[in-house]
């Protein structure tokens, strides 16, 4: 009894490096962002003063803000749902001993390749493809699909689709790798037992795989949410950095960046956007945790049945 309590205290030693490291390096950026959001600090002036909630008030009164939120959500969901779907599919296929898909490592490596590319080059490539005199138009008009060239770059739906596609393309490989890492740890004997019981592939997936990788699924959902809420690189680099055309790809982070890079460098105002993004993300993440929480005795029940 006593020894158990003592042993638990050892946990403090394990987490100590993290806590110290955070206090030294991680705390300041967090504090900095939150503190600045309550000031009118700019990069071009050395003096600033406390303005309370002014930045937040202005933000909520700005008509661009709801647009940014809506865009961020839509662009994220449209890319994430297929991304997760395909990643799960691929992870199951590559780890299934039944299907014996060869060369899992090879496929996985190739699907991860996009993640290694720099966003700037991929955005420039797609911009080039869809420009008025670019290959997409050339092909579509000559193939008779279009009557005349469409300025895709100025077309909100097309540009959004391009952003969604690129985001999906960049990240589905990484998601597959993560899910595979989790799935390979599930003991094969569980599947064998289920097979003997007469379960089919879908049942095994739903009742064995999914519950056992639930913690990692939560990780995938939450980190993708965070990444989605802060989606920046691709929408920023694809057109003019302001969410054109017609603010259709203006995301939360682009709004934040626009303030940061305004002539005065409105870092107080930009930090306020950052804080709001943070609050929004935390709220939804808490929702995810709540919905997917471990219900008592659930895990052991699945395995024994």
């Amino acid at each position: 009894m006593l020894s158990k309590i003592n042993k638990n205290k050892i946990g403090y030693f394990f987490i100590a490096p993290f806590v110290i490291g955070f206090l030294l390096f991680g705390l300041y950026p967090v504090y900095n962002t939150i503190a600045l959001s309550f000031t009118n600090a700019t990069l071009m002036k050395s003096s600033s003063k406390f303005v309370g909630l002014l930045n937040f008030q202005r933000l909520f009164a700005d008509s661009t803000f709801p647009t940014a939120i809506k865009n961020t959500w839509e662009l994220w969901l449209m890319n994430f749902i297929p991304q997760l779907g395909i990643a799960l599919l691929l992870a199951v296929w590559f780890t299934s001993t039944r299907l014996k898909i060869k060369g899992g490592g090879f496929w996985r490596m190739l699907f991860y390749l996009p993640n290694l590319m720099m966003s700037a080059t991929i955005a420039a490539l797609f911009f080039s493809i869809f420009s008025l005199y670019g290959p997409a138009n050339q092909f579509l008009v000559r193939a008779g699909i279009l009557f005349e060239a469409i300025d895709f770059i100025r077309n909100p739906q097309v540009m959004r689709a391009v952003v969604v596609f690129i985001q999906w393309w960049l990240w589905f490989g990484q998601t597959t790798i993560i899910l595979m890492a989790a799935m390979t740890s599930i003991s094969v004997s569980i599947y064998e037992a289920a097979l003997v019981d007469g379960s089919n592939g879908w049942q095994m997936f739903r009742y064995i795989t999914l519950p056992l990788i639930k913690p990692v699924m939560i990780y995938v959902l939450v980190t993708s949410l965070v990444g989605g809420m802060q989606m920046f690189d691709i929408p920023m680099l694809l057109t003019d950095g302001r969410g054109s055309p017609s603010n259709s790809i203006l995301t939360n982070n682009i709004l934040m960046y626009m303030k940061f890079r305004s002539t005065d460098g409105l870092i107080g105002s930009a930090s306020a956007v950052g804080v709001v993004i943070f609050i929004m993300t935390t709220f939804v993440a808490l929702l995810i945790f709540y919905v997917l929480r471990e219900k008592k005795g659930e895990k052991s029940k699945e395995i024994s049945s």
Partner: protein
Amino acid sequence: MKKISIILTVVLVLTMALSACAKTPGEKTVLNVWSFTNEIQTMAIAFEKTHPDVDVVYTMIPMTNGEYQTKLMATLGTDAVPDVVALEAAFVKKYVESDFLADLKSLNADVKKANVYPFVTEVGTYDGVLKALSYQATPGARFYRRSLAKEYFGTDDPVEMQKILGDMDKYVAAAEVVKTKSGGNTYMVSSSGDFMNLFYANRAQPWVVDNTLTVDPMVDKMVATAKTFRDSGYESKATQWTEGWFAGMNDSLKDAAGNPKKIFSYFLPTWGLPYVLSPNATSADKASTTVGDWAMITGPLPYQWGGTWLGVMKESKNLKLAKEFIRFCTLDETNLTNWATGVYTNEYLKAIDPNTPEGQSQAAGDFVGSKVVVEKITKGFDNSTLAQFLGGENSYGAFAAAAPSVNGRLMQGTDDEIQRALNDPLNAYLEGKTTLDQMWTAWKDAVRTQLPDLTIK
């Protein structure tokens, strides 16, 4: 034992302290110069020749993703703040209007002596205080196809063309001529984006007056002209820097169905000729070329585009040396002459600093900001490669003709973001997706996001 170690420590500390204060003979003063290009490094090396006791430490930080400005602002108040900074046209005014740059009034006499073009100093001045100077001047010009000019206007002579296109109204009228005579297969200009600069440069009022957003009539005229050009089909809609824009330079432009189209003219500044028009005047597959078929005129309105200014950071610990560096780069007649006439070859630079990279050199032709130097060397460009590119016309002289009338007084730090905010709403209007009023509203909303303290009616 303890006593001895204490004495030793004290002696050590004293020695270190003393050595930090004294400068050993032969030790050079370090001057930190920051830029976002490798261009000025050439002058930095040349500076070391005339100032052998100075070691210029040149740091290049790209500005493509904002690294340059972010880093600059991060170093304010720390030891790493540079002495001399390069400032590009898009953000130079922002720093000139701020408190970060030192006053360069000690250079005023040299400015007069070099007879710097007014707009160069106007950009670098705020509230009467000179804070930035440039070694170059970047007036804009209008480049047109000689063969097409002969076809549509009966002449390709620059003097005649300047008469035909002397102002914006004449310019629009000429666009109609081009369209009719070419059966719609030649566009006057690549896109309305090409001539936006002209209107902006010729307003009567700046964008911000008494902290209020002001729309000068020239801007209204710009919008109207852009609409006319779009509706009448005078532009190819290929925006600057896209494949279509480049293709038009070498006659390989084809619309989506494959029909060949031509572009009559381009608005480009000094650096546009050697770096944009000339390399792209031949198609990448070498199948078509327009070399020799170009000429240039000042065009309907004078303007400037781009350019790099130099300033001294107030927090610099080497103010005097930094100012001397700027004087050398931007006002020294010998340096500017060498710079513009191609004296700074790689061999020349390597002789001063053996560590000079292979590709570091300055080709002849950069248009400098000193009228004294310009007048001295213009003749030398009569038979240059660029002159041959322009069918015999001396581009240096042509830019010299355009430079004096460029207005730099209206430039403000907020210009860049105000003008950028207009691009997207303007395009929506040109496409017919919104009304004019909706365009202005959308623009004002966008400006409000980045300039919340501005009064916007």
